[in-house]
């Protein structure tokens, strides 16, 4: 046994950030921008799209949140956070200038190297748009490194759609093929937003080259099976379908056990898994 310790920053000790701005995305999802405090500026906090961080609020605990910003826009961390419980209630009370603890980045993130040059289909459901925004921005910022970009996004209703103004504006863009839908009630947005489940947007996805396409999916647990089924229709290879999953987590480092699925830890081997993993590991989706 060699006694080698984990180097700085210590694994479980959050560093401090400050909130620099926030705005409401929906009635229960808020967008936060935060920067590390001066004394932590020297640390390497580089991350990849699809990775997450453990955020702590003073005295109220800690939980995992996907990074919603893109590493191409350095220095600022962005999160889209839904108010659902103890910690997130407290996060919602934070004001500009308030402090937030941060550990990470954790998780494997999207395998960007393997995605270079490929056509990318992104399928987001609900809050899944948070981690996928990081990927989206990354691709847009490095547009020439990727092929086609198809983005399908479904929310429960108009009010629940994250980044709605950004998306409706992007509809005009020639950088990507964007399709939006809500489960029900698209009044007032009939031209921009469809009605129906996100799977229903696949009707716009055609001329896919299965060899050269990678699909990235993130959404609520119930969404994966049906979306994967649609994607499989394009004969994509199993390891080219990437799923960003969620599990309970307390540490982010494969030690607390909660996120284990079979022999793999969502926080280390995930949260991005391939459809191949799904076939080989039970309980994944």
């Amino acid at each position: 046994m060699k006694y080698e310790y984990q180097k700085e920053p210590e694994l479980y000790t959050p560093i401090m950030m400050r909130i620099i701005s926030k705005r409401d995305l929906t009635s229960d999802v808020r967008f936060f921008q935060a920067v590390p405090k001066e004394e932590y500026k020297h640390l390497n906090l580089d991350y990849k799209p699809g990775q997450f961080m453990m955020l702590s609020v003073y005295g109220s605990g800690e939980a995992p949140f996907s990074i919603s910003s893109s590493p191409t826009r350095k220095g600022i961390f962005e999160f889209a956070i839904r108010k659902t419980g103890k910690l997130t209630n407290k996060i919602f009370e934070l004001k500009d200038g308030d402090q937030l603890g941060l550990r990470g980045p954790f998780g494997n993130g999207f395998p960007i190297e393997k995605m270079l040059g490929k056509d990318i289909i992104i399928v987001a459901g609900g809050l899944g748009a948070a981690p996928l925004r990081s990927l989206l921005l990354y691709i847009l910022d490095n547009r020439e490194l990727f092929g086609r970009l198809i983005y399908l996004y479904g929310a429960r209703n108009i009010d629940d759609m994250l980044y709605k103004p950004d998306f409706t504006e992007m509809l005009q863009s020639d950088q990507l093929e964007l399709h939006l839908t809500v489960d029900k009630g698209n009044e007032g947005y009939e031209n921009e937003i469809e009605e129906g489940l996100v799977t229903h947007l696949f009707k716009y996805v055609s001329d896919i080259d299965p060899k050269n396409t990678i699909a990235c999916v993130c959404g609520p647990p119930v969404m994966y099976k049906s979306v994967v089924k649609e994607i499989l229709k394009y004969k994509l290879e199993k390891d080219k379908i990437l799923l960003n999953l969620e599990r309970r987590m307390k540490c982010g480092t494969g030690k607390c056990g909660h996120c284990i699925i079979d022999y793999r830890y969502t926080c280390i081997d995930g949260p991005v898994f391939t459809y191949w993993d799904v076939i080989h590991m039970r309980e994944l989706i």
Partner: protein
Amino acid sequence: MKKKPTLGIYGFTGCAGCQLAVLDCEDILVDLFNYVDIKVFYEAMSNNEDVANVDIALVEGSINTNKQLNELKEIREKAGVLVAFGSCANFGGIQAMALGDGKWEQRFTRVYGDAKFTVAIPREAQPIHKFVKVDAFIPGCPPSTPQMLRALTQLLHGNQPTYTNSPVCLECKFRENECLLNDGKLCLGPLTMGGCTAPCPSHNTPCIGCWGIIDEANHTSELKLLKEKGFKTEDIIQRFRIFGGSKIVEKVQKLLEVE
């Protein structure tokens, strides 16, 4: 200076142990009174407001009279966060052990004869959530000091108290006890909400379930196990009921159906 949070500690029917447990926090008692503006705490002070407007109301005891019920409703109206404090408030306590058996009047007559009540109409013990919305609960008979302080602190700082959703057995094993069930004793640890630090099994005495039933309690399996160990069905169910209060009523029905 920031405004002190206001607190009201109310007691209905019970042993007053939960309130006493607050007074038993000798180490921080002075801090508590300094940090919090206590508006009502009959057991400890005399300058009380009757029912006060408070940020947090801790309500101890079950509801056993109509007078109490009215007061509870008033407390609810005037409280920001209403907390069911201790086993009696949470599920009725021991006075609710026979809840639902339909023999309350009979018991009442046995103790009080045929005299009539006028000032307060007595009723069978019920936990407070049967009448008003409860925002948080602190289990325990009475709540243990660390657990209570943790919950109180969380509430005072605007958090929901974390509630222990693990059975007594967890802490029983932290304290490295041999399992009493395996020793043939009628221990209710697996059915009982943790947080007490398992004092009873740590003293070789079986858990009697005073913290209340945990969500996932598997009464069916425990009943079967205890029967195998030689206990009688009625005795086992009786034991389930003693601290089962309102939480056991339906379960007993099911257990009896299976039997």
